[in-house]
């Protein structure tokens, strides 16, 4: 990695990360605060009136525990979609903008080899995602402990976060790889970003009804099921997400090192 570039990127993108931490703090504390051990029943009643809508947002099985509640309402959609926006913005700022505006020429014209440059940018992206999920884990744990002492099953909640991290790293890898692959900024951003959004939509559709259920085989989001993870089950499929992330990041870096870059 290049220390000079790392320092520059941390300084340039720190504010963006802080803004996203702020936004997820808002949602995280709001939703944690909404938990009411007795509310479970009334929510179940509401869900029965419009099951498709709830299912679409991954909120299919609102259990009674705080862990299940958070897995359902926070980790089912919000903590996928919001970080995905951050990932897209970061990929844009770390790679695409440099190539698009031509500043990449300066990076390439330095004696720092390409693999070191691209490894640095990948590190910044991964670090931001890990920071976001790590922060959420800490925030919700502390909030839950303060508001509902003893309600959160920390080990299972950690599993949910591990799953969320896996999925987000997979998306990050996808967006990163596409940014490394394409010269022009449109495809560079939207092949990865579009695929991520499409995978997410497919997962939402698959949750709606039995006819659409087969769609779950076409999206890696299936590998991450926060509610089941909150029961301590289905941990193994997460390996697929992490492996996918590693492969995608590695592929992106290899491509970037060998590709023609017209700046």
């Amino acid at each position: 990695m290049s220390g000079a570039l790392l320092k520059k990127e941390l300084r340039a993108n720190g504010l963006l990360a802080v803004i996203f931490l702020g936004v997820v703090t808002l949602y995280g504390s709001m939703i944690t605060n909404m938990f009411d051990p007795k509310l479970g029943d009334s929510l179940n009643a509401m869900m029965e009136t419009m099951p498709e809508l709830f299912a679409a947002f991954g909120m299919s099985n609102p259990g009674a525990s705080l862990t299940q509640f958070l897995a359902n309402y926070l980790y089912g959609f919000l903590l996928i979609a919001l970080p995905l926006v951050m990932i897209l913005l970061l990929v844009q700022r770390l790679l695409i903008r440099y190539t698009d505006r031509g500043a990449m020429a300066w990076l390439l014209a330095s004696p720092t080899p390409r693999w070191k440059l691209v490894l640095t940018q990948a590190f910044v992206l991964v670090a931001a995602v890990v920071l976001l999920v790590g922060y959420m884990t800490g925030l919700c744990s502390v909030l839950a402990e303060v508001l509902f002492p003893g309600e959160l099953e920390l080990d299972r909640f950690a599993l949910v976060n591990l799953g969320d991290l896996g999925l987000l790293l997979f998306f990050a890898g996808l967006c990163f790889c596409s940014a490394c692959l394409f010269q022009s900024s449109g495809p560079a951003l939207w092949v990865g970003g579009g695929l991520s959004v499409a995978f997410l939509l497919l997962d939402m559709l698959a949750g709606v009804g039995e006819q659409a259920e087969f769609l779950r085989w076409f999206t890696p989001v299936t590998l991450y099921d926060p509610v089941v993870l909150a029961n301590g089950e289905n941990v193994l499929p997460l390996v697929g997400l992490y492996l996918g992330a590693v492969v995608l990041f590695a592929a992106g870096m290899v491509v970037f090192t060998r590709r023609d870059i017209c700046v």
Partner: protein
Amino acid sequence: MRETAIEVSGLTKDYGGGRGVFGLSFAVQPGEAFVILGPNGAGKTTTIRQLMGFVRPGAGSARIFGQDCFAGAAQVQSQVGYLPGELALMDDMTGAAFIRLMAGLRGQKDLSYAWQLCQRFGLDAGQKIRKMSKGTKQKVGLVCALMHRPRLLILDEPTSGLDPLMQNQLWEILLAEKQRGVTILLSSHIFEEVERLCDRAALLRGGRIAAVEQLGELRAKASRVYQLRFAGEKEAAAFAAAWPGAAAKGDWVQLQLSRGEPVARLLAMVAQSGVQDLQTRQESLEDMFLRMYGGRNE
């Protein structure tokens, strides 16, 4: 034996539709200033991208100080100072922060020469790059290209977008670098501007080298252009008919004299012809290339 600074042989990059460069071969010796001349779209930037290792040659090879430009890019870059044609710096940084970043990427700790250069160029590096004028940005770029005292400078259209004053300053800076023994390769589509600095020129047309010439020798071959204005079209046409090679256009006549052709005879004839005005200039490099190597891009 001295190491060749740049050695390009059979360099080809085909972008389809006739765009790209095809079978370029030339060598630049250490201490030499070499210019790639050519109209826009002739392949100048494509050539430089391959020299900088941004783009992998389709065929042939490009070497700098004996190292392959793509495979050995990182090693090559440590000896090269580069100024891109499209000067895109990082807008949200100050000039000084950008210079520090570039030094960091070079692993260069001592920045005293960089700040010395800033002073020499009259550059206030403290302001945000976004707020800088084109000329000021160019100075930041030049500091980054020169601060590690490279053995070779590669500059892509270094004067484009600069006002004449700044252009002049740039040539002074480059001349000083040349006197220090730095090898320079630059590209330009303006023929006249490179004469002060460059020893040799490659003329690039349609992605192929039309000629490689010593600029000094070429200058000696330059002819003089005479433009004469007459009272009317009739007089102009009459004069043009009497002098071989002269062409009339309205009440103007234009003709060329090569070195050694009799100026006195022309002047004597002009004096008797009732000429109104006479202008004379040296043939431009561009015209000369066209005269010697044929027409423009088809």
